Every structure is written in C-alpha cells, then in structure tokens.
C-alpha cells in the first residue's frame, strides 16, 4: 500500500510542483524501497542509509566493522542523528565516522558520507541471528536500515598464489625474475612468510613489487593481493637444462606453493691467454717472432668457427696458425701460434698488439705487449768507424814518426 502511494507520489510530483499546489509536501521515500519501481521514471530524490551486505557474519570475541553510508540524492543537506536499535545484551555497537564515534551525520546534496558500525560481539554470544536497525533522524527525514548479524564460524585461512610467467629461458649469466601475485583469501590480515626451494648454489631473493629491498615476509590485508618478485640467480657454471624452483608462501597454518622453472641454455665463453700466462714478448726489427696463444672455452656450450685476428701497428705483419678453429668444446684448450713481424722502420720500444679470437656467440681479445729491439749491426759499424780512426792515427805515427 505504501509502495503504491510512494510511486504515485513520485510520478505525480513533477506535475504537482508545476501546478504549485502541492509544493509544501515533498515526497518522503522510505529507505531502500522506492528505487525498484521508480528507477526508469525520473531521477531519485531523497536520503538513504545504504550498505552492501545487509546480512553479515560476525564472530564471537572479535570486533567486526560493517561499512554503510548515508546517501543524499537531490535534496537539501540536513543533520541526521544516527543511532542503533536492537543491539542484543552484552554486545557493543558504535557508530563510527572517520575512525571516531559519532552521533550525527550530514550528507551534502548528491553525495554520501561513509560510516561504520563497530560491532563488538561477546565471547559467549549464542549462535543465531540478531536483527538490528540503524536509524537516522532529522527534522524532516527519518530513515531506518535494518540489518541481520549472524554469529558464524571462522573462515579458515587461505592463500592463493599465481604467476603469469612460470617458465623463463636464459643463460647462466642471466637473472631470472618471476612476478607472483599472492592473495590473502581469509578474513583477517596475515603476515606471509616467503621461502623458495631451489637446486644447490642457486640464489633466490624476494622483493616486493617494484621495490628494491629484499624481504622475507609480507603482511597482506584480508582479501587483498600483492605482487612479489622472486629473483633466481643460477651459478655461472651451471649446465644447460631445466631447473624447477618451488616458491612457498605460508602464514597462520595456510600454505600455497607455486612451481617456476628456469630453462637454462648453455653458453660458450672464450678465453685467450698466452701459453705461459705472460702477455708480453720481444721482437727484433724486421724479423719474425713466434708466440703461442691458448684459446679455450670456459663456458658450457661449444663455440664454432673461432677465427683469429690481430691488430698491430702499421706496416707490421701478423699471422696465425691455424687461422681458424672449427669447434672449441667446453673445457677444451687449443694452441694457436702467432707470428709477428715488426716493420723494418719500427723504432725500438714497447708496442701494443691486440689479438682477438671471435666465434659464434662469443669473442675475446687480449693485449700483447711487444718490446721491439733494434739490431746490433749499427753498433758494430760504429766500432768499425772508431777502428778506422785509430788506424788513421797509427798510419800517421808510422808515416810521420821521427827517429
């Protein structure tokens, strides 16, 4: 009956206002009732108390917070005294606004005010449902919001974990970053302990989302989820293969696991040294000197087509034997003979010759310090000149010597 009157009133309102005969008596919609029938007809006017879940579960001995709001649609703001009726004996129900207990609320036009009910349920509360009514009363408005609170059992703690990229491919040098999304699916905030089971010598670290700090545990609010990042660093000498890492998130008896996989492909790593480790040598101007280089593979995969090359000062000659190596297996070492011929016009002193081994996938260069020495031939010539001068003197002694 009330519903019919209300809808009639809403439909008639514009006409009546237009006629100026009914202006003094604005419509008085009851809370939560008018919307259904009048939704399409015209914009709603009035004040309501709203909550998402009018029937909720509370647990004995705990404090629950129930969110609701005072909604104003198209009418003048008004101070409404907010109170709760029907609280069972021993329960403590307070109306809170912005964290403080309040007694009245005022919603601006076409806006709302967020409010909470703080419900303290005694430990010995009997199971069953309790009905309470929230009232908001002002000079012209009087709204009620009936709610049902059921004493319920505790929801068990539950954690969900998922990842978008559970399998990553890389080399032993790369760092594997997995982003995991952890959701707290229980009713309370939980502190999650993070752990990872990885093969020996693998390093795992946890960071939060985009943060840089390493973490070992992480608090997550009820129902919320957070991103954590697991960084796995394999040892550099790891062989090619698939390596599983088990990420475990646990808190308050609940555990969730997620397996991520590292697909490590092998990588060759060239090394280039001299035979006795000494990266220096001597060479005479214009003459060929031989040095022995060692080309090795310190990596985990073979390297093919290793070609030798060298950069030496201009007019110098450099030759390698062999010039190229077909295949260098991991751990293998090959000897390469390099012949360096300094230019005829080279000046004595130290020079840098750079030798390079380049294969498919990796290359390595080594700087070689070559001390160029000049020939002693001109020294002999000098001694010859001095000898000639002495001969001239002796000749003079023989020719001009007096008795």
């Amino acid at each position, binding site marked *: 009956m009330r519903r019919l009157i209300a809808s009639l009133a809403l439909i008639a309102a514009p006409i009546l206002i237009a006629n100026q005969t009914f202006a003094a008596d604005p419509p008085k919609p009851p809370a939560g009732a008018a919307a259904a029938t009048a939704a399409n007809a015209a914009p709603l006017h009035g004040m309501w108390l709203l909550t998402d879940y009018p029937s909720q579960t509370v647990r004995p001995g705990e404090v629950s917070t129930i969110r609701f709001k005072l909604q104003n649609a198209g009418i003048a703001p008004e101070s409404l005294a907010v109170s709760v009726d029907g609280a069972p004996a021993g329960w403590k129900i307070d109306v809170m606004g912005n964290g403080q207990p309040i007694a009245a609320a005022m919603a601006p036009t076409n806006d709302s005010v967020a409010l909470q009910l703080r419900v303290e349920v005694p430990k010995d509360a009997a199971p069953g449902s309790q009905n309470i009514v929230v009232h908001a009363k002002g000079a012209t408005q009087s709204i009620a919001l009936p709610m049902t609170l059921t004493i319920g059992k505790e929801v068990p703690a539950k954690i969900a974990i998922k990842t978008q990229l559970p399998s990553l491919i890389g080399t032993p040098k790369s760092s594997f970053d997995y982003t995991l999304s952890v959701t707290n699916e229980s009713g309370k905030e939980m502190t999650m302990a993070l752990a990872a089971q990885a093969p020996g010598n693998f390093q795992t670290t946890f960071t939060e989302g985009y943060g840089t700090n390493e973490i070992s545990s992480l608090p997550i609010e009820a129902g919320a989820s957070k991103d954590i990042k697991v960084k796995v660093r394999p040892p550099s000498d790891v062989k090619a293969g698939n390596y599983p890492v088990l990420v475990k998130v646990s808190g308050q008896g609940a555990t969730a696991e997620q397996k991520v996989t590292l697909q490590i492909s092998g990588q060759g790593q060239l090394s280039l040294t001299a035979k006795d480790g000494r990266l220096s040598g001597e060479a005479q101007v214009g003459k060929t000197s031989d040095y022995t280089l060692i080309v090795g593979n310190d990596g985990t995969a073979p390297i093919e087509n290793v070609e030798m090359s060298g950069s*030496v*000062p*201009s*007019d*110098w000659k450099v030759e390698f034997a062999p010039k190229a190596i077909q295949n260098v297996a991991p751990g293998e070492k090959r000897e390469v003979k390099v012949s360096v011929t300094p*230019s005829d*016009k*080279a*000046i*004595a*002193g*130290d*020079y*840098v*010759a750079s030798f390079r081994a380049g294969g498919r996938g990796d290359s390595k260069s080594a700087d070689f*310090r070559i*001390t160029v*020495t*000049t020939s*002693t031939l*001109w*020294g002999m010539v*000098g*001694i010859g*000149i*001095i000898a*000639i*001068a*002495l001969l*001239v*003197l002796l000749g*003079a*002694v023989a020719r*001009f*010597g*007096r*008795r």
Partner: protein
Amino acid sequence: MQREGSPFTGIGPVFMKELSDHLTSIRMMVLTLFVIVFGAFPVASSLQTLRTVVSADAYLYLRIFTIEPQQVPISFISALNFIIPLMAIGLGFDSVNSEFNRRTLSRVLSQPIYRDALLLGKFLGGLMTLAVGLLALWLIVFGAGLLLLGIPPRGVEVARAFGFLVVAVFYGGVWLAIAMLFSVVFRSTATSALCALGLWLFFFILWPMIANALVLGFAPAEITSIDQYVGIQELAIALQRLSPGTLFSEALLGLLNPETRTLGFMLPTQMRGAIPNAPLPLDQSLLLIWPQVTGLIAGMIVVFSAAYVVFQREEVRA
C-alpha cells in the same frame, strides 16, 4: 830511417807531470770553481723542484740531470754542454806552444822521449784532469740527490748516470783535441786560445743558424711528397750533428731520458701502436746513442791525429 823502440816510451812521466801541473795550477782551481758554480745552480734548483714531485717516477734520480727548473731556464746537462768545452779549451789551448815559448820543448825532447809520447801524454793528462773534475762534479750531484731526495738510486739509474759521465769525458776530449791542435798550429798562446774559443762560439751560436739557412737553400720551392719532407728533416738533423754539442746533447737525451725512442726524425705512423712513455731497456738506449758516441770518439781521434801530424812536421828548436 827506422826508429828504435816504442814511440810511446816516456809517456808515463809526461802524463804524470802534466796531471800534477794541471791539478796544482791556479787555472785549474778557477776552472773547477767555474764548473761547480755553473753546475751546482741548476742542480740545486732542480732538486728543489723534485722534492715537491708526488707522482711515482721510476727514474727520479735521472731527472736531477735533465729537468729544467722553473727558477733557472737551464738544466744541468745543458749547462755542462756549454761549460765542458770551456774547461777543455782552458786546459789545452797552451799545452804545446807555451812549452815552445818557454823554450822547454827542445829540452824535453832531448830526453829519450819521442814527440808522439809527448803529445799523447799531454792529451791524456788533460783528459784525466777533465775526468777527475767531472767525476767530482758527478759525485757532488749524486750526493746532493741522496741528501735532499732521501732515496737511493736504482742500479740501472747509476749505470745510465755513469754512461753520462763517460760520454761527458769523450765530449771534453773532442774539445781538448781541438784546443791542442790550435796550440800546435799557432805559436802564440793568445791566438790559439782565441781560435779555440772562436770555434766554440761558432758551433754554439752561428752553426744552428747556418745549418737552417743551408736547409732552406737545399729545400725545393714546394714540397710534394712525404719522402721529400723526410729528406729535408733528415738533412737538417745531419747538419746539426756536425756540431759536437749536438752529438753530446743527443747522447745524453737517450741515456738520461729512458723514454726516448729515437733521436732522429720520426713519422707519426711509426708511433702507431706504441705505448707512450714506456722506458727503453738500457741496452736499447745504448744502441740508440751509439752513433753519437761513435761520432764523438772518432772525432776526438781524428782531430788528435791532425794535431799529431802537424806537430811531427814542426820545427821545435827556437
């Protein structure tokens, strides 16, 4: 007519007499004082500079000889380059003609001493005097370095510095031979001194300018190739090397600056790939300066031979 016995009989007494004459003479005192003052000033200044050096230097000791201190625009070796000829001329310009003028020459030669021995003995006596003076100066420099730098020199530094001493003695020998040649040629001591000093001034002041003028004269109007350019540069260096002072300073550069790789003209392409400031080993440095040292030694012998020939043909009776 064949002469009897060695031409060098009696060289010992002449040498000893000449040495003792030199070492006790007032002239030697004056010359030594001159050299020490001339050498001590750059050394004291360079030691002042070196005491403030903080960077590591493997050849710090050799820098005493080579660096140009800020207070005096002359290094120790350039001071010596200038002063050694003066010392040698001072010792040799009157060695023969003063004897002639004092009429003691015929008296000496009436003894069983050949002219060969007389001239060589006088030359070696002068050279020994020069060597004693230079050694004293060298030891003073080394001692001052020890005292003021507080670090001992390394073996290779001592070897290079000793090489410097040897080269300095040969350089003095060249000028001593020149001075003795003039003392043989001219009867008047004043004339021979003037000629020797004139030659010294010629080589130090005029010769660089004349050499430059000669190079300009030889150079083509337009240089068209790099070989031409290198040729001109090498001609300029060769002309400069006719002066004993150039040979001396180049030899010292190679010895006392181990970083010196070449003393001649060098194209930038020859320096490609070279490690800058890498010192040469001692034997390579010696090979590098050997032509210069050869030039000094051979020049000394040739000039002495000329003096010998002139002396042998001279009338010694007065």
